């Protein structure tokens, strides 16, 4: 589903990605791990069109999306979340979740002033968002500003928001950072459910390895801008190089 081929990204003199290649099959749940600064977030930025890459090729779902704009990547069904809280702080929680929904009639400036044209659709959308928020225990905050949420709740809201964009594949940058363990576990269960029931493909960056290892089909390990290992959780845990550069045991 997602192919990344020999991707390089240079920031001035710093080579953040130095020939990274990986492949994610449809319906797979893949983890991407590696030390701080190894280039994981940069890889997601490059795939999602947030930063232009220096060289290499990215294809998704049969389309070459190399250096496509971020909105074009979204339209292909590849949706990302951010490592840092990136909810719309000045907007309430429900609107945050509803914003990415596709084909909104009310987002046309000529039709938007005529409420009756979009009211029904907006109601459906708002209820769909509320359902997702409920499943992430955010429903009771739906009328609050997103800035009033805790850090962990913001991560949850971002997950909800990503879902509302109807993704074929999600790129999640540390979806459980700052989330308490029981809820983090629930997030992973939700992710697995989404994969199993809706066939959504996942590439997940995480430092919370205990949980990640339980849920993923395969893992890629990054180090200094390149993939240094790939395999099942057991393979990776036993890999001496990975132990050396990242796991530290």
């Amino acid at each position, binding site marked *: 589903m997602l192919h990344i081929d020999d991707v390089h990204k240079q920031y001035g003199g710093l080579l953040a990605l130095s020939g990274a290649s990986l492949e994610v099959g449809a319906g797979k749940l893949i983890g991407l791990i590696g030390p701080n600064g190894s280039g994981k977030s940069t890889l997601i930025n490059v795939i*999602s*069109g*947030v930063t232009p890459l220096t060289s290499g090729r990215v294809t998704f779902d049969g389309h070459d999306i190399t250096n496509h*704009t*971020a*909105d074009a*990547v*979204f*339209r292909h069904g590849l*949706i*990302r979340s*951010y490592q840092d809280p*990136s909810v*719309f*702080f*000045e*907007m*309430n929680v*429900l*609107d945050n979740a*509803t*914003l*990415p929904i*596709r084909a*909104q*009639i*009310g*987002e*046309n*400036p000529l039709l*938007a*002033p*005529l*409420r009756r044209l*979009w*009211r029904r659709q*907006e*109601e459906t*959308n*708002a*209820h769909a*968002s*509320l359902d997702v928020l*409920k499943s992430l*225990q955010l*429903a*009771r905050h*739906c*009328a609050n*500003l997103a800035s009033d949420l805790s850090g962990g709740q913001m991560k949850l809201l971002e997950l909800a*928001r990503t879902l509302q*964009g109807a993704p074929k594949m999600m790129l999640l940058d540390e979806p459980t950072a700052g989330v308490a363990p029981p809820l983090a576990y629930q997030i992973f269960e939700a992710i697995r459910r989404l994969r199993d029931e809706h066939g959504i493909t996942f590439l997940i960056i995480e430092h919370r390895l205990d949980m990640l290892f339980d849920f993923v089909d395969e893992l890629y390990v990054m180090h200094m801008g390149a993939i240094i290992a790939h395999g099942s959780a057991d393979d990776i845990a036993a890999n001496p190089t990975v132990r050396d550069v990242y796991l530290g045991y």
Partner: protein
Amino acid sequence: MSIDLLATGIALLTFFGISALMALSLNLEYGVAGIPNFGKALFVSIGAYTAGVTYTRLLPLLAGQEVIDPCGRTLADALQLRSDIMFTDPTAGWLNFAITLLIAGLIGGAVGYGLSYITLRLKEEWFLALVLLVSGEIIRIVVRGYDPIICAHNGLSGIAQPFVAVGDTQTASILFAALTVGFALIAFVYAERLIRSPYGRLLRAIRENEHVSQSLGKQVARIRAQVMFIGSFMAAVAGVLFALNIGFVNTNDYVVTLTLDVWVMVVLGGAGNMRGALLGAAVITILDRVTAIVAIQLNMAGSQWEFNYFRFILFGLLLLLMLRFRPQGILPERRDTTSVPLVFAEETADRGAGAEQPSGD
């Protein structure tokens, strides 16, 4: 010292309608979408110049007359011709008025769309502010020096408003005041509904974080260009009304101070709040007229103070004080939401269920 209260009131109302259109357009662009349009005078001037062109070229045609060169030796004849038509052939006058508004709006909108698309795709939004500020001045200088549009620096007079045909001057100006306020009202209702729709949510999202918005599938450059189209359309309509109200078109009226006046209206009234834009327009219109009247009175009383300049100091001071002590404006932006009321019953029901949840876990 006698001030004709009715005439002053009518003039105030007309200026208010025109200012309100400008303030609403900037409020949509800057207050809601976060686009710092420092070229308001440019888009207003597009409307005024369009009126100059249609009154001298289109109006005679609509009245079945021959077009006369409005600038050269036939200047007086051309002026006579367009005045006559406005007084004797109201159908041609109104048709010309309607077409002027439409063309002005479309040209203004297209220029706004184009300029924002070019600049916003490349750089920070403040780059657009600079481009617009400079473009306005460049266009003004070009029009000043280029005869065929509005006879260069001479400008054009006899740009009559369409109600002059009713005969009585006062009735005509009352009707025109009502018309401008009517246009402002339409713009207000449109803008107000727009910001309370999913489109308003979209604009606020882009204002807050354009990169994340784009990652969520929003075509940021295109949407900003749309807003610039809408805002510039309104500004150009205001420009037509402005020219018709004073009866002539002259490049001197569309300088940077006009842009700054509109900014003061928006910041004073409350960026992002459409009622605030109306309030800001009202306050600035009144202050503007009052200081102008005081200036005239002082002059007549023999004062050597040029009170007109106090207006600029006053507005500048007002802007600084607002930014320092009440940056959100007199009427702050309302935290509007389109979706919450639609699920509100359920949300409160969930609140009840939520309270029991901890014991259940």
